[in-house]
């Protein structure tokens, strides 16, 4: 009998998983179905550039079904819930129920701005924006265009968020943008974060913290947003501290897909699906696997992580189907270009055990790590075609292994923190 694999989500993780599986199995061995509620695949790293007019929203969206190889069924429907015990996915509307032998949860993270008091109230999309959605990023582009001076506040409400470096990149690009417009001296840029410093990992936090300072961006650490007063122009912390703004760019709370919450036993309190951090098998049922932002694993919610997870995930689905033990091969590898403005970017590379270190990537003659350079900025720009043409088809990228390379890293830097 044909094995049925159902993949929930046609984004980065779902698409590369489907394509890798299709290459591994013949269609008469394995039937692959991808479910998504719409047919719009957004290149999410591109959202950062939209507010600054450096990227058009329509240039970063392509049809989901076109990214899937032949022999993969695409179902455009919203998931109502998963019946974990019956191995069934129930869809909304008239779409028939899908039975599965293996389920892959790849439905990402969802923005939940309504969970923060006042955030979607007066002022939302007028002077309070987010660039984490295509509509938000496009609306913010207009607002930035009209902004002639005052207080710009960039605020992360709470972790986890997708691409934890993006809010910092937004600050750096805003500094560049207002400098180019000749009004940087009339704009006060503030970064308010719930973290203790600019970033989660100590050595990178030090580098990024000094960059904020050098660019005259104020850092407000340990700020926990309790309420957004859009009309009054202030963020109010749970500790009653206030941060005033004329324009606020807020990264809202994130949760998993709504259907996860409607599926008994599938997700955690935030609707993410708990999974083994090294095998990516869910802790819910042995035939359910998780990839990307949908997973509750201690890795960044980022496209690079999802990409590196792909190999482990597909190998382990194969092991599971063959009745073999799974391999704990995923090491938490993440790799992020951080735009710092003025045609430069910084690169960080890390895993579960190793924090971002200085050095070169992937080996001693590679791109500079934890240091801004023009080369890294080019790397970031070149990544978009690589995403559509190599990463989504599920190809291994030349010179880029799934596990974290150690060759070019300067480990001595880490020891001083211990």
């Amino acid at each position, binding site marked *: 009998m044909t094995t049925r694999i159902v993949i929930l989500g046609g984004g980065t993780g779902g698409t590369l998983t489907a394509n890798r599986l299709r290459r591994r199995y013949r269609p008469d061995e394995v039937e692959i179905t991808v479910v998504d509620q719409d047919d719009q695949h957004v290149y999410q790293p591109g959202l950062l550039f939209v507010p600054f007019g450096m990227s058009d929203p329509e240039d970063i969206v392509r049809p989901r079904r076109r990214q899937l190889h032949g022999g993969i069924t695409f179902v455009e429907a919203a998931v109502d819930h998963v019946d974990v015990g019956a191995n069934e996915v129930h869809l909304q509307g008239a779409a028939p129920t899908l039975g599965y032998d293996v389920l892959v949860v790849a439905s990402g993270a969802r923005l939940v701005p309504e969970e923060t008091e006042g955030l979607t109230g007066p002022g939302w999309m007028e002077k309070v924006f987010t660039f984490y959605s295509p509509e938000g990023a496009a609306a913010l582009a207009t607002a930035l265009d009209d902004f002639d001076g005052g207080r710009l506040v960039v605020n992360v409400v709470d972790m986890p968020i997708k691409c934890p470096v993006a809010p910092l990149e937004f600050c750096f690009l805003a500094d560049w943008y207002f400098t180019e417009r000749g009004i940087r001296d009339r704009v006060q840029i503030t970064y308010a974060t719930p973290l203790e410093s600019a970033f*989660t*990992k100590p050595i990178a936090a030090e580098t990024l913290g000094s960059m904020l300072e050098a660019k005259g961006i104020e850092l407000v650490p*340990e700020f926990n947003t*309790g309420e957004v007063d859009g009309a009054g122009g202030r963020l109010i912390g*749970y500790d009653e501290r206030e941060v005033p703004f004329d324009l606020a760019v807020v990264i809202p709370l994130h949760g998993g897909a709504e259907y996860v919450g409607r599926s008994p036993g599938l997700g955690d*309190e935030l609707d993410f699906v708990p999974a083994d951090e090294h095998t990516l098998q869910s802790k819910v049922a042995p035939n359910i696997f998780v990839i990307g932002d949908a997973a509750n694993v*201690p890795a960044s919610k980022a496209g690079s992580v999802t990409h590196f997870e792909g190999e482990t995930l597909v190998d382990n689905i194969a092991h599971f189907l063959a009745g073999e033990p799974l391999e704990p091969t995923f090491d938490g590898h993440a790799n992020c270009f951080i735009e710092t403005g003025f045609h430069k970017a910084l690169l960080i590379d890390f895993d579960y055990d190793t924090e971002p270190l200085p050095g070169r990537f992937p080996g001693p003659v590679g791109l500079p790590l934890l240091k801004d350079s023009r080369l890294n900025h080019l790397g970031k720009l070149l990544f978009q075609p690589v995403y559509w043409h190599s990463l989504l088809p599920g190809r291994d990228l030349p010179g880029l292994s799934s596990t974290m390379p150690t060759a070019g890293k300067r480990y001595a830097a880490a020891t001083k923190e*211990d």
Partner: protein
Amino acid sequence: MTTTTTVAGTTVDLDDEGFFTDPTQWNEDMAREMAAEEGIELTDRHWTVVRFTRNEYLQKGTGATVRMLGKASGVPVKELYQLFPKAPAKTAARIAGIPKPRGCI
């Protein structure tokens, strides 16, 4: 870096931020003493949070974040900040004798 210190008359191991490295060394007297050092007198509401996060750690390997506490402990976020000012998740974890909750990266 782990340092050995005495809490409520017993020797325990704490990391450099004051979190227990071995949760089995903890008892409720230690919780009261560590809370008092933070200027907190533990009420039933505090204990609800402390027990919840300790239980999360024992079951899942990490203590709860503020959002998780707000959603699942039965104590709303606003009240969490009143009970444990500044950093509710960290303070509750310290008092509950568990390692620092694994922040999100």
